[in-house]
């Protein structure tokens, strides 16, 4: 019974934890401009993140090594440092975006400018990282974030033409008012949002934090294989809501307030309340995850002591690094840069950095010295290799497309 409860909790946390500001914004933007014609990318991204999160979790549980230790060990110091620089920059952008997201959601709730909420969000995030136990932090944010299900509820309340939605999703085509360049640019952005590397850093380090052993692998697999697809389903309902309300109205999403409009139209103030609760929890949870991820990547590259299972004094450099990252993120926000814009760039840069992260995981998951008899099976290897090719193509195409389309404008 207790075990069943644990599984249920894990799945719910994975669903709530899947969506962050990147998924929220990118899916709404795409829904409002392309309808559901990019839904297939979410599907591809979810399968990919399931595959590699599961793999990195398995490596961590069997060998006790988190992903960035593996990256440095296998790619060497030079390529490892290049990866560290890229991942750290993306993490920093994502931290900035998530803290901005918390503040924007609070502005939507209160009407008070988001700038005034930023210091509040900063302190709250830091306090949780400093004082709250890993498991509590994870579960609370994930469970409250589950109220984003309101997007799915809203979609039903909007009584859309299901047939037309389905045909958009099943027969994807570039809408007449958008060029193929922007279509593929947003395809890469959605892919990057679903497969952001920080999720893997966090997932594998979390496995070490919670001291997973081989026997916990079944549960982790259930969490991932049920939780992430359901999270992907949430992403799709965000896109669908935008496609049903905003696309016909000629509104293309550039702000968080626009993301909320379909939900408000469908469910009124109650739905809005649920939405805001969900957005705050999801972005807060993601802010924790990305801040920790920046600490994890740095500490694991340089071999510092890390982890929330240690007292801060026993992982001093790790905690100092996270404080610096949070302050840097807030410093970026105080320049007045639009957090939504930061989000949109961060998901595309994520897509660029993907190969550097996923290649070493795949290699080490096949290394018997690390994995013993738990090395990848043949089927997993074939799928993972196909994904590696997709990731590589997306990564190489991202910058030319970004320049050509003026970042999707």
């Amino acid at each position, binding site marked *: 019974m207790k075990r069943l409860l644990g599984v249920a909790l894990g799945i719910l946390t994975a669903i709530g934890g899947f969506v962050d500001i990147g998924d929220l914004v990118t899916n709404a933007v795409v829904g409002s401009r392309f309808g559901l014609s990019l839904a297939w990318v979410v599907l591809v991204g979810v399968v990919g993140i399931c595959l590699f999160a599961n793999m990195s979790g398995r490596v961590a549980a069997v060998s006790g090594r988190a992903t960035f230790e593996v990256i440095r060990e296998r790619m060497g110091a030079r390529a490892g440092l290049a990866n560290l620089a890229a991942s750290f920059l993306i993490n920093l952008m994502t931290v900035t975006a998530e803290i901005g997201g918390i503040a924007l959601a609070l502005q*939507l709730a209160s009407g008070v400018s988001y700038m005034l909420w930023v210091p509040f969000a900063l302190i709250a995030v830091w306090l949780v990282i400093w004082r709250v136990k890993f498991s509590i932090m994870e579960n609370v944010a994930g469970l409250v974030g589950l109220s984003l299900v309101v997007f799915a509820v809203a979609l039903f309340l909007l009584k859309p033409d299901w047939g037309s939605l389905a045909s958009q999703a099943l027969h994807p085509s570039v809408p007449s008012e958008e060029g193929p360049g922007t279509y593929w640019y947003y395809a890469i952005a959605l892919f990057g949002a679903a497969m952001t590397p920080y999720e893997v850093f966090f997932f594998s380090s979390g496995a070490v934090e919670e001291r997973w052993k081989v026997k916990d692998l079944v549960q982790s697999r259930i969490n991932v294989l049920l939780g992430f697809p359901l999270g992907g389903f949430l992403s799709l309902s965000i896109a669908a809501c935008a496609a049903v309300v905003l696309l016909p*109205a000629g509104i293309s999403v550039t702000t968080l307030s626009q993301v909320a409009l379909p939900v408000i*139209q469908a469910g009124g*103030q109650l739905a809005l309340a649920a939405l805001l609760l969900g957005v705050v929890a999801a972005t807060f949870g993601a802010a924790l995850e990305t801040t920790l991820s920046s600490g994890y990547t740095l500490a694991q590259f340089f071999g510092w002591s890390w982890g929330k299972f240690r007292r801060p004094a026993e992982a001093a450099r790790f905690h100092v690094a996270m404080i610096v990252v949070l302050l840097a993120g807030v410093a970026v926000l105080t320049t007045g840069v639009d957090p939504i814009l930061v989000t949109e760039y961060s998901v595309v840069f994520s897509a660029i950095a993907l190969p550097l992260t996923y290649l070493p995981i795949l290699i080490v998951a096949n290394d018997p010295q690390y994995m013993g008899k738990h090395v990848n099976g043949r089927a997993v290897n074939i799928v993972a290799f196909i994904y590696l090719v997709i990731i590589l193509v997306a990564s*190489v195409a991202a910058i*030319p497309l970004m320049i050509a389309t003026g970042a999707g*404008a």
Partner: protein
Amino acid sequence: MTRSRKLLAAALAALVFLGGLLSGCAQSPSADSLKGPAKEAASAVRTASLAVDLRLQERATAAAATTTADDMLKGMQSATDQLEHFGAKTQDEQSLRDSMLAIFSTISRSLLHARDALAAPTSAPGGGTDLAGSVQLPAVQGELRTATEQLEELMTKAGIQ
């Protein structure tokens, strides 16, 4: 090692070149350069319109609707900036830009009205005791609609989808 560096440099150069090539192809004639700001403005004013609607139906809270209007106002500012930086080459472009700027300022004004009406403590359509607030919202709604129509008309005329 030197070879791998050369390879990297070559790859980067190729990427930049490819990007430049693509953006060169996408380099648009004048009507297209006005397209971005025009679409942004259209999206902003339609959003504000929807937000006022939802407020009138008591679905949106005052805070959410005000924030939306405020966000759209910022969007209009950036669209206006873009338009002002647009260098018109022909007489036609010049006049198109000027009429668009005029409509942009109408839109900005109506967004400002919308925001103030939404932010007014009495703006609650049903519960407000002061009649002035509840009268104001429908008026603002009309203003937004007119502005939207003007912009759409101009966009059709200029051949902007």
